[in-house]
């Protein structure tokens, strides 16, 4: 006993491990695990065949495809343009830079419903941008494109804010070294800069993606919520709740939860692998 105790004491130089770990687990249980497990428990009110009928209804399956598909596309768009935004903010000085830097955070702060209404007003057939797109045959509001636009909007800060500090920390000297060795700008970017920011970009992408999957407020206005076309899964859940079908609502929620968890788990796995390679066992 005594020996075991002293070994533990040696392993943890920082005091308070037991207390802080205990609190963390208690807190996570209270805030995250208990509500989530309630969803699972509520779902058990349904038999398996009932459950399967609810979650595999064609209208619900269409909503999964829209939610995860649009979230993925939105996150990918953010990865590209968020990187570009971060690059511009870090690498160049120009008047109004501070303002643009602050603007990036706006999607964080804006109530999502406000964002949804604003986007709808702008992209509707008679809106500022919508009126020019309509004649070209591009309808944004009340279509899946609208959903993608909304999900891109709310995800932007995640990519910018994760990539920006890494880009700032990048040593200018390594780029100069690459140039002195004969690399052109494109080679320097792909072989030196990109590998360094890739883990951060992946994190930003994962955050934007996760945020988009759970997004509700900004989407429902612009989506128009046409069944099979522009109806997202969170809306289906709300609809079922409004019809007092609590068990069915939680059944759909559980499916979302599991898919989200698996996706995030996979992305985390990828991150871990990338990080391990990037820091090369140091």
């Amino acid at each position, binding site marked *: 006993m005594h020996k075991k105790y002293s070994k533990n004491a040696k392993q943890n130089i920082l005091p308070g491990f037991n207390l802080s770990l205990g609190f963390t687990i208690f807190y996570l249980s209270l805030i995250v695990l208990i509500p989530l497990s309630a969803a699972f428990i509520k779902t058990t009110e349904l038999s398996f065949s009932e459950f399967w009928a609810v979650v595999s209804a064609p209208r619900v399956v269409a909503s999964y495809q829209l939610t995860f598909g649009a979230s993925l596309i939105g996150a990918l768009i953010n990865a590209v343009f968020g990187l570009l935004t971060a690059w511009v903010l870090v690498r160049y000085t120009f008047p109004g830079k501070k303002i643009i830097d602050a603007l990036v955070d706006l999607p964080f702060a804006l109530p999502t419903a406000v964002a949804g209404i604003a986007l709808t007003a702008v992209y509707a057939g008679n809106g500022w941008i919508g009126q020019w797109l309509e004649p070209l045959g591009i309808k944004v509001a009340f279509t899946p494109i609208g959903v993608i636009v909304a999900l891109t909007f709310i995800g932007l800060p995640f990519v910018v804010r994760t990539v920006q500090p890494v880009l700032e920390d990048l*040593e200018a*000297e390594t780029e100069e*070294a690459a140039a002195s*060795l004969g690399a052109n700008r494109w080679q320097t970017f792909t072989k030196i800069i990109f*590998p360094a920011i890739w883990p951060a970009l992946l994190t930003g992408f994962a955050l934007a993606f996760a945020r988009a999957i759970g997004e509700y407020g900004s989407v429902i206005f612009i989506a128009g919520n046409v069944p099979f076309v522009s109806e997202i899964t969170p809306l289906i859940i709300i609809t079922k709740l409004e019809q007092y079908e609590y068990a069915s609502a939680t059944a759909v929620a559980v499916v979302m939860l599991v898919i989200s968890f698996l996706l995030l788990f996979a992305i985390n796995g990828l991150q871990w692998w990338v990080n391990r390679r990037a*820091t*090369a066992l*140091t």
Partner: protein
Amino acid sequence: MSIEIKNIRKNFGSFSALNDVSLDVPSGELVALLGPSGCGKTTLLRIIAGLETPDSGSIHFHGADATAQKVREREVGFVFQHYALFRHMTVFENVAFGLRVRPKETRPTDAEIKRRVHELLELVQLDWLADRYPPQLSGGQRQRIALARALAVEPKVLLLDEPFGALDAKVRKELRRWLRRLHDELHITSIFVTHDQEEALEVSDRVVVINKGQVEQIGSPQEVYDNPVSPFVYQFLGNVNQFHSQIHQGEANIGGVGLKINAHHDTKHSAGLAYVRPHDIEIHKVRNGEAPAFEAVIHYIHAIGPLVRLELQRADQEDLIEAELTQERFRELGLIQGQNVFVYPRNVRVFLNA
């Protein structure tokens, strides 16, 4: 390949980093740019490399104007103080980088790259580290890899920016001897920047002393050490004692003591500064005939190492004189703290006040 630097000026805002600097580096020489921090030596090196553009003036490589060339066109190898290795690449890939980014027509085959990289790693004696990543190496190893990487592209000029500045004293000494040997093998025109006069004097063929954006003196290590052209160079190349003096017809009068100096014979009644190196201070316990001497008290004795360092307080004023004796001479004299002695400066070097 020779390098000619002509009338380079560079300002950063209102700060003048380089003020009309001209310098010729003959082919195959190892030249040290020596100066205190902020004197412009690194800026000059970066301008030679093409990492910085001069406000005016030109750079010529072997007679051809290279001022407008970009860094990647100049075929220079650049070694940074903090190595600037690519962290996410193995040592092998770091060294191979310069070969791999070549356009397809001139890129060597994989087998050729492999052969070349291992050859270079053997040259820097680190072939066994090929599969490691830079963060796993010590500082000295990293700098040798950085050097191998720079040499991989067969540069015409090798530029090193305080290459040993981030290393500890022992490794620094080892590496600078190793650099000298490497240069003797490869004969590549090399310029390195340092603020360490010992390093510059030991390693280089020629020393360029720079101060406040201007070249103070150019010469072999022996020349600049023995015949410094200005008080700055004299002070920068070693410890000194400085005396305010009146110069009159080949004699420096320092507080009533008239020292013969082998210069300024025609100067009459001018103020000047007289300098003496600590090892040129001779000490006697009794007055040595008619030779001019200061009376002084031994203030402090530091007797560690091959040389004994003494601090002497002049009798006529507050100033301290620093002296260095061999252990042998020190024991012979049997000096102790607080003792009265006579100080005889040799090789006094005088610069008249401008």
